[in-house]
């Protein structure tokens, strides 16, 4: 089977030798792709979904990618040069979030016939379209419409996300106006084109946590186990009198799940900052000389704030951390909370194992049925 061969191929930009022709890039005419009976099926090995960052030039795609995934300081992004090629970043530091970020150059039209759009959009999980809110967005909306129409044709399973970006310079009223306007016009376009797509809109900026939050929500849609995880978190907070609990990816500070309570931006920022504090402290004082990890299975931290709230952090696995916010008086029974956490961790590990087991089934089966991206079916709980 051709899939098996492709499965063995090293995947990802970083592993390719300089100068080699990337097959995934889809330039030129590749014969084997033309014969692909299921163009919607992904080419990647473990159904790793892709998140495509698209949009007009200078809308901030590379900045988002750099700030969220490579920890670049937002001010530094001013000095990024334009991206000439599709830059791929592999995010595979834990078993729940495994995906690729593809950062597109805004100047090139990838729906041109010289590019193989099947390969580019076939295995794609989500398409983030970035609109510069500080600029005139008429052109951006035209491009958005073109992009969605064509991408939908290639792969109807793509989730479309629109980031109304660079809102840091706008007043709150302005933000709302722009969002409403963009929302209205984009949806009108969709209706006109007769497409059954729903956009999700986010107001983002790299200068605050909004970009992380938006990305969290995008990523969560790609996690098939999300309902299970949310359910587990709900049980945990109910039984431990916790106000809010986030399951964080420590490296990117994206939260991959939270309980059913509404997310308050401030509490999210607080949790992000706490992770930073913990990592920084343990980097300086905790890690032994030749140990690179600042976060391991003993990592845990409690921070008491003077307004009567407690932040409590526990390691779940090597990339995930649970961060909880609770009232100080409820933290009295820390033993109970720890026990509940222990149960929670065991449950999460079970979910992982289940995922591992399903992965061992021949993946081509999944491919052939078209339910390929993994996130289409979650394990029953």
């Amino acid at each position, binding site marked *: 089977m051709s899939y098996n061969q492709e499965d063995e191929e090293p995947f990802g930009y970083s592993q390719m030798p300089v100068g080699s022709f990337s097959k995934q890039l889809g330039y030129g005419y590749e014969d084997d792709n033309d014969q692909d009976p299921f163009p919607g099926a992904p080419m990647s090995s473990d159904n790793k979904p892709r998140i495509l960052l698209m949009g007009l030039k*200078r809308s901030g795609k590379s900045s988002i990618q750099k700030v969220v995934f490579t920890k670049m300081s937002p001010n530094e992004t001013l000095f990024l*040069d334009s991206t000439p090629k599709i830059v791929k970043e592999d995010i595979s530091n834990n078993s729940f979030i495994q995906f690729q970020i593809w950062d597109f150059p805004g100047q*090139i039209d990838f729906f041109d016939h010289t590019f193989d759009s099947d390969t580019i959009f076939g295995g794609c999980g989500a398409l983030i379209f970035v609109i510069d809110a500080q600029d005139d967005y008429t052109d951006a909306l035209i491009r958005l419409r073109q992009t969605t129409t064509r991408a939908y044709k290639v792969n109807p399973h793509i989730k479309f996300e629109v980031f109304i970006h660079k809102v840091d310079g706008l007043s709150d009223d302005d933000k709302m106006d722009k969002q409403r306007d963009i929302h209205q016009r984009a949806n009108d376009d969709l209706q006109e084109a007769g497409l059954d797509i729903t956009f999700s809109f986010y107001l983002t900026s790299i200068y605050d946590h909004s970009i992380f939050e938006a990305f969290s929500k995008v990523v969560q849609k790609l996690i098939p186990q999300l309902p299970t995880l949310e359910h587990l978190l709900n049980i945990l907070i109910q039984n431990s009198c916790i106000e809010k609990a986030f399951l964080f990816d420590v490296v990117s500070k994206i939260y991959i799940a939270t309980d059913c309570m509404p997310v308050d931006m401030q509490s999210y920022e607080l949790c992000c900052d706490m992770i930073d504090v913990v990592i920084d402290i343990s980097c300086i004082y905790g890690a032994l000389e030749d140990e690179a990890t600042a976060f391991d299975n003993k990592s845990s931290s409690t921070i008491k704030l003077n307004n009567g709230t407690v932040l409590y952090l526990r390691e779940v696995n090597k990339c995930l951390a649970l961060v909880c916010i609770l009232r100080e008086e409820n933290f009295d029974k820390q033993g109970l909370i720890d026990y509940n956490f222990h149960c929670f961790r065991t449950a999460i590990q079970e979910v992982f194992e289940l995922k591992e087991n399903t992965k061992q089934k021949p993946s081509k089966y999944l491919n052939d049925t078209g339910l390929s991206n993994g996130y289409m079916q979650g394990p029953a709980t």
Partner: protein
Amino acid sequence: MYYCSGKRVSMNAILALCHFCEQHGPRVLFCTQPFHERNNIIPATISNDTESIAANDSINSELSEVISKSRLKSPTPKFTSTESVDTAGHNDGPSMAKDRCEGCRSLQSSVPGYVSNDLEAKVKYVSSQQPHHDQLYSTVRQACIRSLSSEVCLGREGPIFFGDSDTRYVLSYTFYLQDTKSRGGRRLYSIIVVMMDKIYLLNSWPFLVKHLQNIVKDLQAKAKCVYEEEDKTQPIRPPNVRSCPVPTQRRLQRSRSSAVRSMVDMTGDETLFKSLHLSFTWVLKACSNRLTEKLLEGPPTEDSIVDLEKQEEVVDDFVLVGTEKIADQDNQETSSVADSAIAIGAAMNSFSLTDDTYCSSSNDQIPVFHNLRELYQTMGYHSFHQLAHHVLVGNQIIVQTDSYMITKSIIDCLQVLLPKGCCRIIYYSETYEESWKCNFLGLSKFCSLPKHVLDSEHYALVNVDSPVPTNNVLELSLNPFQGYKVQLFTGQPPMDKASAPKILEKMEKAVANQKLNWLVVEQCLICIKEEWMNKVKVLFTFTKAGGNRSEEDTKKLLQVFGASGEDKKALKFWMTGLSSQYKNHMRQTSKQI
């Protein structure tokens, strides 16, 4: 790899400079392509230098326009009258976007391009913004996109090779130019070489990379100058921006860095594209001169293999040949010039040196032998037969004449009789050279042969005496060698016809047949030689492979392939002319047995 004499195939390549424009993405900026002339219809009015077409000469401008437009479509372009050429239309190449910003425009609309003429090779090098031919344009455009967008390793500069038979093969050299007004302080460029022939392109890699690198370094140095100058007044990265958490500064930055800029502006070089045209033209021309493709017409002859080996020798021993030349220039008085020019057929540099030296001193009136038949006619059958016999068995042939040109022509004529590997030639020497050094020796008239040579039997001396000057022009034109005395001296009594090798008989027949054109005779000789080379190979294998062989065995073998005892001497001599490739091959295989 086999090379064989055949048609020369001209190189087809396009050199283009591409740019990743911040507004428009990958764009072809400037592109130089050669146009090979098929029939000589271009008026010779165009001088051999570069000219800015429109600026200098309106006729030329139209001409180039017509060339570039029609040449590719039909092999014989029709020249329209100058009025009918639409000069305004030249900008709108195939699928050319209307929006070209300063950054992705190389030539102003008043200058459609540049043309350089190589009158000798009949090639025109035309530079323009982009190829005008539709298909070429899409090929180059695609190569451009790939070179700047997919086959690029961010932050890395340097060469890369990609392509396939559909999209052509491309060598791309990516590089950055510093620019204060650009995002990130630099802009991405690439120079691409697009060719049909993968092997040719890869073989030219070292050459191309070296020279593209030079071009790039030059551009970067120019851009750096401008960059540093501007950075002093307007630093691209204000020192305090890192500590500034509020994005107020960003606005300023954003508006400032959106400026697009032409390459001329960035490098501060007004004549940038003109000199680029010259560089590109040179690279294209030198690259096509560097490697000559030859069509293979049948398996290579032993001669062509020997030629190839000698060529390689010369290339490998380049330093050696060079020092020899310098040495002989120093000692021109003391030792003979041609001494060092131990004339291995391929060391043409040395030849031309001696040629020039003697040509200038020689009289134009002196006739030369153009081919073997002329020599045959002049010498008469008997002498020629003797001489040819000596040549074939490898005796030293010494030529003494008044004129270097005659000497050279005689030797050149005679060497046709032998396989190339057997010819060791010294065209001119003041003193006698030993026979192990050369089997053809042009000797000064004033030098007498040493005694040991005169005593030996293995030499033949050709002596040409010039006639007493005569004014009879008419006679001269009928027979150029009227009055010349060509004499043959040998160290042994004339050999009888029966002892001559069989091959000589065949060769003589061909040479003597007046009805045959000389070209036919030449091919015929090659054919005969090749036939006998094969016999030589058999004999070589026979002697090397089986250890001791008795006289009887050898005789039997000779009988098998139709040679007799008389041929043995010639065959043995010819064995020395086998290519080392064949010899090595034989030695290795015979060892295995």
